[in-house]
């Protein structure tokens, strides 16, 4: 056992161990006091966050077996995952009580999933990437079905499971073919093999494309997005919020890592595929969102659209000149999207009723009068999703488009701007319902949800005044290149 491995994985291991303990301790916590489990889970996440932050000064390094890596990129994403996990706990606690599914397993599974995401950010070997992907997915299959015996929740879980395993199969077969072509599975090894040894190009490109398809399923890029609206609608709302934000971030974390660390030399083969994926995802996601009546489905399509914008950041991945901008704008947008998304899902969770009603757009009518603070927060999130100035979403899109143009993909940036204009229609429609229609929405009394929503809204607005600080932080969190 070498000590580097332990150092790099310490926060992840601590979180996993804590989750295992939590599973045990939860047995002694009575059903009406599951709040204790929630607090314990939050404490574990906070402790792992502290450990991660304490590693901020460590130099970038890999262990001797080249399985894991620790660099600024991974640590930045760790903080994002742990913060999303904390929000996931805050979103869930009152919702679970309300829906009468206050099980302690929820929190343990959430922690396992976060541990899987952290492992994704640190993985430096395709086989570990596969294992991390499964560690993050399997708990989520169960979480989406945790609202048993409601049929929607069970069906969403089975759909997510079948499609998730399908995509894992692609990732695995892609890995096998890449292993066959290069005899390596560690990312720097693949990079080196591509430069020196004669590599069978057909097998390698086929493997890389299969890997890309598998990951495109995970981040729900068009045309691999069909499962997303159904799964997001059927899963319990806090789980959906966590999936929409953290799983997407984890998928992009690993996509960025693989593309930039292992595949830069095959850029001319992969860039057109990524270009088409990004353009299609932006167009289809935004256009399909227009017709949705349920806010959950609308936000599901909106998350597909945002996957398109994030993919745009990765299109110029093989251009070493704009490499640092690619990383910085990707990480910046992930933070902007996470804050906005978690806040918006917190509002949706607060308005959902015990029987699962309260998710239609009409249910938001009159929210501006009856709950001005919640409506104001939702306004901030919708504006940030659209990319209107004075919100973090604006800067996120600004940096993305700038990166695309620097990389020479002006048409893609134009598609991005046009689809953002289209998206204004369905985001602003929510505002129209909240402020201009009369109605009496019922909001559940849920202090933690409101704290999460207001805090996220404040962060979205305040950080937009100092975008450079966050961008520099993201830009300095460099990915270690081989």
């Amino acid at each position, binding site marked *: 056992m070498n000590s580097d491995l332990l150092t790099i994985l310490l926060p992840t291991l601590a979180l996993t161990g804590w989750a295992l303990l939590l599973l045990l301790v939860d047995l002694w916590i009575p059903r009406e006091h599951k709040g204790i489990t929630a607090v314990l889970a939050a404490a574990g996440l906070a402790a792992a966050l502290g450990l991660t932050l304490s590693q901020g000064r460590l130099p970038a390094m890999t262990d001797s077996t080249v399985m894991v890596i620790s660099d600024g990129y991974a640590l930045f994403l760790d903080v994002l995952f742990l913060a999303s996990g904390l929000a996931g706990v805050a979103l869930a606690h009152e919702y679970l009580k309300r829906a009468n599914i206050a099980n302690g397993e929820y929190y343990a599974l959430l922690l396992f999933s976060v541990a899987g995401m952290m492992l994704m950010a640190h993985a430096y070997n395709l*086989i570990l990437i*596969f*294992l991390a992907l*499964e560690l993050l997915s*399997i708990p989520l*299959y*169960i979480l989406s*079905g945790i609202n*048993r*015996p409601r*049929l*929607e929740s*069970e*069906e*969403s*879980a*089975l*759909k997510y*499971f*079948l499609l998730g*395993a*399908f995509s*894992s*199969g*692609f990732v*695995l*077969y892609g*890995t*096998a*073919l890449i*292993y*066959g072509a290069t*005899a390596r*599975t560690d990312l720097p090894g693949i990079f080196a093999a591509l430069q020196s040894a004669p590599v069978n190009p057909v097998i390698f490109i086929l493997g890389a494309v299969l890997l890309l398809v598998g990951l495109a399923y995970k981040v729900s890029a068009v045309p691999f997005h069909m499962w997303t*609206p*159904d799964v997001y*609608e*059927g899963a319990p709302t806090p789980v959906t919020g966590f999936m929409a934000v953290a799983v997407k971030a984890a998928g992009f974390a690993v996509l960025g890592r693989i593309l930039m660390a292992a595949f830069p030399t095959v850029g001319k083969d992969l860039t057109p595929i990524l270009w088409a994926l990004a353009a299609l995802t932006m167009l289809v996601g935004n256009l399909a969102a227009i*017709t*949705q*009546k*349920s806010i959950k*489905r609308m936000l599901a399509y909106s998350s597909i659209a945002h996957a398109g914008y994030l993919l745009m950041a990765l299109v110029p991945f093989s251009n070493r000149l704009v490499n640092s901008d690619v990383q910085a704008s990707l990480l910046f947008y992930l933070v902007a999207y996470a804050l906005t998304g978690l806040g918006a899902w917190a509002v949706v969770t607060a308005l959902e009723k015990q029987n699962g009603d309260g998710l239609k757009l009409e249910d938001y009518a009159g929210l501006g009068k009856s709950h001005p603070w919640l409506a104001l927060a939702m306004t901030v999130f919708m504006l940030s999703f659209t990319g209107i100035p004075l919100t973090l979403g604006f800067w996120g899109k600004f940096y993305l488009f700038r990166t695309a143009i620097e990389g020479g993909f002006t048409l893609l940036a134009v598609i991005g701007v046009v689809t953002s204009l289209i998206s204004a229609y369905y985001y602003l429609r929510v505002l129209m319902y909240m402020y201009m229609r009369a109605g009496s929405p019922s909001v559940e009394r849920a202090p933690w949800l409101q704290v999460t929503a207001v805090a996220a809204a404040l962060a979205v607005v305040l950080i937009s005044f100092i975008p450079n600080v966050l961008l520099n932080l993201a830009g300095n969190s460099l990915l270690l290149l081989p």
Partner: protein
Amino acid sequence: MIPLAYYIALSAVMFTLGVVGVILRRNALVVFMSLELMFNAANLAFMAFASYYQALSGQMFVIFVMAVAAAEVAVGLALMVAIFKAKKAVDVDEMSSLKG
């Protein structure tokens, strides 16, 4: 000695059959079997390449993949039992309570 290409061809056929099965079959259990076929196609490819390169790493991965596949079976079958209790069927076409 059987040439490497035969193994890879067989694994490609298995993988394709798995993909086609997932897309075309409607019974969730059969879909599940097709998924296993995809995983095992990858396992076969890993084993063939490992013996071709005389490297142990490929064989090690197969063990990992088997463990992961077993974990997925546990979750997947539990989900199917839960749905079967409610609907007395596991046909994916009948899962229509979620439509926009």
